């Protein structure tokens, strides 16, 4: 059952109004930005809650805003649709986004670009809401590109530093590669359905006519998945996400938890009926997800930058979600998306609080012993750590377990085994992060220690709320809400015990290595030698891409600029000019200026005509 409304659009419009305010008024009224920026997102959250309550059981709310594109037979509406999946996403985006907005007020206090920052942040929320609420894939693509643009703007927020600007550019370009695949997928759908006289990309219509797409479904799904690997940072297009740490820390939290990276997961969950037609494409999704999870978790174990650890952790957790999608556990994947939004936002904001307290320090080598100095951050981070490690009854345990059990019970149990290994690594690297930051001796300089302080309430309050959500989020019945798509089984007790043991083992190992015997890690690293360096250098994927893609492209551009353009293109143009000039140079010799020469050619012409008439 679908109920038409006229007010659903306001969920999107409220943050959009915030953008306008921050752009046009914000610079002159910083005090108002503090209220308007987070306030409008909070209002959007309240409206989303209201919409969630008004949504009919098993149905959806719909708002047809206006007819957007009419091109021949093709039509695309600007229509919003709030069904169960969109409802979950909207609540996460506005809810977690709202907390991050509040936190940002404290974190960005006194920054030159305060209003600009909130304009971008609101725009980010707007774009993400368009993405999750869109009732057709064209409008979804608008949001899809919108979050890409905002990530570029926010990652390069402190653009005075060239490396920040470069990181923003990298995110934009890598996403472009994925978006090309996404667009091709859309074209393929339009072309196929158009052959049958159906000219729309409305999701409900696609679901209704999915039999017509049966033949092209594998290709469509793979192309759309290319887009998802870009947005959701999967192999091989994940490289932009770790660099995205160049932005302000709350932005990292927003990108990693509530918006942007969840777009790919959401899109595949939204189109699960299409993926169900293409088991091969689903297998690809599962394999890529599992490999990404393993790869990124391994890299995260050897990073020293606190934000880098969390970045690779996000990549790894997104791999879990794709693994869940790939084995048909859509509900579990979205469940993990939600819990991940809670604990990853918490971890990022907690890390931001630590960085803030240490005056901008991000290197974990120069942290430690902060547990007693930053009480609230310590406790809330502990909740986040336990949640991501998957210790019951924290939220990560439930969602992760469901994915892992579905993977083990699915067609490729080996993927489940990889998932379990990743669970161990996850517990280890988060434990490592936590121990290096909060336990042991403080390794910061005297000066930094002197200024060390707990963050203000505007920052710790969101931490506390998120910590509660990270603890209790596991009891939300998200898979049940989504109506049990696929055939999801609940894990047996033995499996839960195994996962718990792995989590505890990982955390224990981290505690042993980084608290009990702090000399041991460097010894292990020395023992592992080249392999350790390979992991620490992130398997040198960036260098590989640099050599395989960036340099050849630059070399090609260089050849074009110094050879092809001046010699081939210019040569052709100049050559044409020279030929004309040479021909005319030859012909102008006949223009002597002497009247008698002209008269002679006149005579010759007259005689020729005469001859012609006579001999004809």
């Amino acid at each position, binding site marked *: 059952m679908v109920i038409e409304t006229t007010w659903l659009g306001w969920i999107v419009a409220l943050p959009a109004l915030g953008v306008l305010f921050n752009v046009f008024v914000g610079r002159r009224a910083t005090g108002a930005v503090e209220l308007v920026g987070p306030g409008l997102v909070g209002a959007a959250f309240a409206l989303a809650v209201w919409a969630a309550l008004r949504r009919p059981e098993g149905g959806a709310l719909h708002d047809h805003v206006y007819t957007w594109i009419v091109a021949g037979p093709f039509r695309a509406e600007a229509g919003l649709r709030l069904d169960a999946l969109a409802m979950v996403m909207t609540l996460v985006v506005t809810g977690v986004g709202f907390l991050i907005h509040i936190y940002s007020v404290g974190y960005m206090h006194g920054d030159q670009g305060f209003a600009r920052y909130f304009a971008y942040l609101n725009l980010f929320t707007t774009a993400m809401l368009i993405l999750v609420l869109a009732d057709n894939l064209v409008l979804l693509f608008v949001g899809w590109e919108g979050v890409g643009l905002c990530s570029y703007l926010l990652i390069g927020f402190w653009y005075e530093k060239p490396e920040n600007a470069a990181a923003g550019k990298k995110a934009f370009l890598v996403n472009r590669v994925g978006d090309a695949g996404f667009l091709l997928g859309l074209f393929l759908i339009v072309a196929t359905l158009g052959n049958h006289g159906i000219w729309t990309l409305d999701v409900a219509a696609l679901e209704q006519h999915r039999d017509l797409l049966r033949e092209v479904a594998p290709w469509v799904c793979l192309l759309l998945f290319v887009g998802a690997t870009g947005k959701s940072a999967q192999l091989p297009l994940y490289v932009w996400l770790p660099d995205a740490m160049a932005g302000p820390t709350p932005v990292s939290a927003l990108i990693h938890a509530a918006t942007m990276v969840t777009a790919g997961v959401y899109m595949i969950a939204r189109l699960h009926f299409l993926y169900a037609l293409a088991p091969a494409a689903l297998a690809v999704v599962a394999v890529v997800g599992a490999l990404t999870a393993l790869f990124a978790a391994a890299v995260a174990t050897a990073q020293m930058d606190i934000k880098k650890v969390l970045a690779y952790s996000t990549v790894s957790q997104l791999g879990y979600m794709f693994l869940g999608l790939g084995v048909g556990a859509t509900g579990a994947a979205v469940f993990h998306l939600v819990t991940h939004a809670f604990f990853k936002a918490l971890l990022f904001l907690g890390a931001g609080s630590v960085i803030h307290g240490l005056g901008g320090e991000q290197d974990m080598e120069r942290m430690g012993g902060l547990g007693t100095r930053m009480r609230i951050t310590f406790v809330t981070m502990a909740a986040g750590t336990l949640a991501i490690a998957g210790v019951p009854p924290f939220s990560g345990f439930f969602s992760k377990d469901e994915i892992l059990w579905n993977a083990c019970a699915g067609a490729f149990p080996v993927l489940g085994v990889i998932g379990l290994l990743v669970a161990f690594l996850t517990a280890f690297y988060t434990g490592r992060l936590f121990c290096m930051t909060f336990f042991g001796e403080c390794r910061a300089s005297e000066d930094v220690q002197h200024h060390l302080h707990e963050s203000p309430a505007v920052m710790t309050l969101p931490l506390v709320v998120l910590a509660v959500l990270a603890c209790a989020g596991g009891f939300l019945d998200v898979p049940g809400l989504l109506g049990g798509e696929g055939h999801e089984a609940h894990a047996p007790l033995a499996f839960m015990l195994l996962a718990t043991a792995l989590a505890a083992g990982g955390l224990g190992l981290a505690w042993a290595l980084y608290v009990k015997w702090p000399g041991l890690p460097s010894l292990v690293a020395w023992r592992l030698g080249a392999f350790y360096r390979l992991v620490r250098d992130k398997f040198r994927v960036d260098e590989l891409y640099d050599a395989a893609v960036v340099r050849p492209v630059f070399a090609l551009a260089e050849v074009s600029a110094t050879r092809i353009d001046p010699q081939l293109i210019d040569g052709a143009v100049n050559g044409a000019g020279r030929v004309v000039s040479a021909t005319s140079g030859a012909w102008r010799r006949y223009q002597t*200026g*002497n*009247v*008698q020469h002209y*008269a002679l050619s006149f005579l010759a012409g007259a005689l020729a005509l005469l001859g012609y008439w006579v001999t004809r």
Partner: protein
Amino acid sequence: MTPPLAWYLGLSAVLFAIGVLGVLIRRNVIVIFMAIELMLNAVNLSFVALARSLGSMDGQVIVFFVMTVAAAEAAVGLAIILSMFRNRETTNADELATLKW
């Protein structure tokens, strides 16, 4: 007894050829100008001869037109030659060849 038409036409052709040669060979623009007049009058002669032989007045009417045009042309042409001579102090066609390229 009047001479046959062919004689008139032959004389006309000879006069015309002399005029053409004069235009092409002589260097003095005034002489070239005179050669042009010669060509015009050669044509006039053939017109009159043909008019007479065909018993039609059309040819003679054309001759009047030609003479009128020739008079106008002589006036314009001599004026041009005069102003050329004032500017360049020459009437040699080879030296009056600046209108080129």
